[in-house]
């Protein structure tokens, strides 16, 4: 299926309906502070089980796009970023709203998000086949090194404590060994429970970690509400002079966002802050940043939405998720019987091409929805938590059940939710557990297969150039995190 045909497939009424629902739902969830695209996708994946792969995946892609953009609405209107990626948007978006220019800020935010998302989608379309055809040469040694590199993400996403993040990751790796061994048919760590023979299924585990945990967290402060001011938006579409001024920022921030998105363990928040900093550095009036500069909003929003296309590149071509959202999306592909990685581009172009064009269509729908309905989304986002709690709980548990009609899966989701809640409450990040559950089996199987091929010699990982490069990158990425952290501690001590 070529790209034109794929675009026509996406534009079929039913597919267009699903992608629109995805984008609109994503914007609403993204606008609610505390709820993220990860949660929305993990809630909806099980319900896509009975759907064809194309509508199912484009709907989830729509949620991803909408979810990242949605965070900017509450960031601009009420000084509370709906998602971490919109944190930099607050800096200039909220002052603009206070100056009576909320319409302008929201308009620029959605246009920047559209440009960022579309540019990253185009880059993804051109780069992915190249990377996947290169990855076809990978043997088990390269796959192990690649999985190892993917696992180093744990260090960079362990925001507060690297020790706790590492423990979470190791715990996830240990849990990933439960069930039948992939090489020798032997059931490990089942402790007499029959349903554990297949191990911990990814989907219920992810639903438990992200959705059930969130429900339990919402129980802590059920009375919190979002107060959205009643204002009429004016000047949503920027003038030609403003547009001319913003074009270089849109382009540069989109490239920054795509590049950062493709690096494992980074994400929308890092991309938006780096891009914001770059826009400020290049500005003739850097001192005005933070007081309501449209350039600040444009830089942050173009970069955070450009992360979407960038983050999908390693996930689709190598089967390595770079963050929690792509880890969940990887689960969505698996549930549809598709194995992310180089073979996906050889065997399933009928799904890949519509997925690519779906990302572009999702960005167009997001642009229209943002230009004409930003205030409406803000109102829907102020839904009372008392209603939100049972809704999320019911959808997540029914979702865990739905995929295979199994109560054991529901119990696994519930169990992971309880464990996740207590760990998260004590500062242990949950994304490392999800990443380890996905990457653990890949790492173990390829490690042992490589050892069988090399007759027990570990030199196989160091003598093959690509494997060596990934091992070097793994060491480098751990070192960068440790150095960055130590510099931060040193600066803090110096300031005190």
């Amino acid at each position: 299926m070529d790209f034109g045909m794929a675009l026509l497939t996406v534009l079929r009424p039913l597919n267009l309906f699903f992608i629109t629902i995805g984008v609109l739902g994503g914007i609403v969830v993204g606008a609610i502070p505390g709820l993220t695209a990860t949660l929305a996708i993990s809630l909806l994946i099980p319900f896509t089980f009975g759907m064809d792969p194309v509508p199912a995946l484009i709907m989830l892609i729509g949620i991803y796009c909408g979810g990242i953009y949605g965070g900017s609405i509450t960031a601009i209107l009420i000084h509370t970023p709906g998602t971490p990626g919109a944190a930099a948007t607050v800096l200039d978006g909220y002052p603009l709203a206070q100056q009576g220019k909320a319409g302008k800020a929201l308009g620029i935010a959605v246009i920047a998000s559209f440009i960022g998302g579309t540019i990253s989608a185009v880059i993804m379309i051109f780069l992915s086949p190249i990377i996947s055809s290169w990855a076809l040469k990978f043997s088990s040694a390269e796959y192990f090194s690649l999985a190892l590199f993917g696992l180093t993400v744990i260090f960079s996403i362990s925001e507060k404590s690297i020790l706790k993040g590492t423990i979470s990751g190791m715990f996830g790796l240990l849990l990933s060994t439960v069930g039948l061994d992939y090489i020798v048919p032997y059931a490990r760590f089942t402790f007499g429970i029959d349903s554990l023979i297949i191990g911990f299924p990814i989907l219920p585990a992810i639903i438990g970690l992200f959705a059930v945990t969130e429900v339990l967290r919402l129980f802590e402060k059920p009375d919190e509400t979002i107060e959205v001011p009643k204002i009429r938006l004016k000047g949503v579409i920027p003038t030609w002079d403003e547009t001319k001024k913003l074009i270089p920022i849109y382009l540069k921030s989109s490239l920054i966002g795509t590049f950062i998105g493709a690096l494992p363990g980074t994400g929308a928040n890092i991309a938006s802050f780096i891009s914001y900093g770059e826009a400020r550095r290049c500005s003739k009036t850097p001192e005005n940043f933070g007081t309501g500069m449209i350039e600040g909003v444009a830089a942050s929003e173009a970069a955070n939405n450009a992360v979407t296309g960038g983050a999908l590149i390693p996930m689709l071509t190598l089967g390595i998720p770079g963050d929690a959202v792509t880890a969940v999306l990887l689960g969505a592909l698996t549930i549809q019987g598709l194995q992310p990685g180089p073979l996906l581009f050889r065997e399933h172009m009928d799904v890949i091409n519509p997925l690519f064009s779906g990302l572009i269509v999702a960005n167009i729908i997001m642009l229209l929805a943002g230009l004409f309905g930003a205030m409406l989304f803000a109102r829907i986002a102020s839904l009372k938590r008392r209603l939100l709690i049972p809704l999320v709980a019911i959808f997540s548990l029914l979702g865990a059940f739905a995929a295979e009609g199994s109560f054991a899966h529901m119990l696994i989701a519930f169990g992971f939710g309880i464990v996740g809640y207590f760990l998260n409450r004590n500062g242990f990040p949950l994304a490392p557990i999800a990443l380890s559950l996905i990457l653990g089996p890949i790492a173990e199987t390829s490690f042992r297969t490589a050892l069988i091929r090399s007759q027990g010699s570990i030199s196989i990982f160091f003598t093959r150039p690509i494997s060596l490069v990934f091992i070097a990158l793994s060491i480098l990425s751990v070192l960068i995190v440790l150095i960055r952290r130590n510099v931060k501690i040193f600066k803090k001590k110096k300031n005190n």
Partner: protein
Amino acid sequence: MKIKDLVIGCLFLFISCLFFIATFSFPTPPVQAAGPAFWPQIMSITLGVFALVLISKSIYELKKEKKASIIKIKKNSKKRDTVTEGIKRPVMGMMATGLFISLLHYFGFIIGIVTYFIIITIILNPKYSWKRLTLTIIQASILIITIYFLFGEFLNINLPTGIVFN
């Protein structure tokens, strides 16, 4: 917080020991360099080591905290009360969710959802009124109809019907 870290560290140490000991019964294929026990053993040892680091870090910081003044301890105990208070509702939520799963299993999604909605309303608002309760039942009914038609009929998703009614 340090006491909690200590407890969680001990729990992880226990888990790692449990998994490590369990690997002793795994078969060791003679021709393979790494059998089914190899990878879990590495993982459990690494988890154990990091758990030990967390435990020693917590003990060291607890010792440092002991040196703090009585006033500080008093302040901390107040903080601890707030922490326990904050966990009350989530624990009740866990119990309600556990009950919801049992209800789904035995009586299916219609009875399960209505009951869960009512219990959650009571947990979140102990001063509930009959008016609120009626509103909750209406909300639950709308949700049930939506779930039935959207997921059951339109998307062909399995919905739990309950073993009692089967």
